[in-house]
């Protein structure tokens, strides 16, 4: 999955509801809609390593590398409402 960083946690949260909590997420700083072609390409290239990791590693290796982070992203402990992104 590719996201801007504002939506990374939310993306993992939603992926978890579909049974995919360990989806590899390549993120870039938000926003991007104002970017011209050259900086946009630079942003895409910066995400390539993560994308290659997600496409080439085994599910077990991916889960091992993401597990701890994923748990905090999916549902922050004790948080039941949030006016700022969590």
């Amino acid at each position, binding site marked *: 999955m590719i996201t801007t960083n504002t939506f990374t946690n939310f993306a993992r949260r939603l992926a978890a509801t579909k049974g995919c909590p360990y989806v590899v997420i390549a993120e870039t700083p938000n926003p991007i809609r104002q970017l011209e072609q050259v900086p946009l390409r630079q942003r895409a290239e910066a995400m390539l390593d993560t994308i290659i990791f997600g496409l080439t590693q085994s599910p077990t290796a991916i889960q091992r590398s993401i597990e701890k982070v994923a748990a905090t992203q999916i549902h922050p402990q004790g948080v*039941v*409402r*949030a006016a700022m992104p969590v």
Partner: protein
Amino acid sequence: MARTSVRFESESIAELMTQAYEHAYEQGWTDGLPIIPATPEAVQRFIGATGRPAEEVIGIIPPRQGQASVEVLAVNAVMAGCRPEYMPVLIAALEGLTDKGFPLEFIQVTTNPMTPFLLLNGPIRQQLDINSGTGCLGPGWRANATIGRAIRLILQNVGGALPGIYSKASFASPLRYSYICGENEEENPWSPFHVDRGFDPHDSTVTVFKASNYCNISGGEGVGPDEILRQIASNMPPMYGGGDGALLLLGVNHAQSLHEAGLTKRDLQEKLWALARLPEDHFAADFAAMEHTAGRGADGMLWRTEGPERIHIVVAGGPGPQDVYMAAGLPQTRLIRG
């Protein structure tokens, strides 16, 4: 299904209620307002009012795929302040909300403030004192307030639409507290909405719409049908996220005037569809392109909906030169049983 129970102790009932509210708020189980504690006795009374087994699952609610069983609905209905006899309405509404054709998951997580709007038809309105007349969309009627509230609690507690966590609605909306009314069939000069959808006039039904807004339309008193419709149409512009349709709650005075002018509901749909359009250069280029792609425009104009049939007409409210327009569509109508 896991069950938990919480016990509070105090010599004061008021203190017990306060403790229950504080605990429920900390757990994220409320809409911010106080709740009625869902005691086992109260929940059993509510389940008993349905004639269904407690474990029967009515639907699965996204995004967290919570199982909306009769018991779970009963818990949330008690918390919302419902009466037990409201349960069949909640069950039928949940059947509509969890229909595959209804975009419930989208509604639950989007940044848009969309929320379900419930329309009640048939004898259930009198049986449960559901307001269809003056003040029908406002506070004061227990059935209107608590049935709508129970729906919100169910979507939040069972589906997981916790504000800011799974629900990303940027502003959300006061409509998410409760958005429901009955159709004023008694002052509707045409056929009721549920009859148009194939039900018998004596059936009791609930229709759920995907609704994005609320817009009161004032004016058009003592004028002819063309001016009434022009006034209404001018308040129904093409809008982002509203493409699924439009719902018009026509005020009783305007309904009578339009009927006396010989207009049918189909006539209203066609005339409003022809009037509710604007030049595309009135809008941002991106939006205009999107509407054209969706089939809502041609010849330099953008239309409110793809066709007249997407403008739904209901009669509601009390006397006065008022109507209500909602960007609302994708109706799911269900029979209320029990």
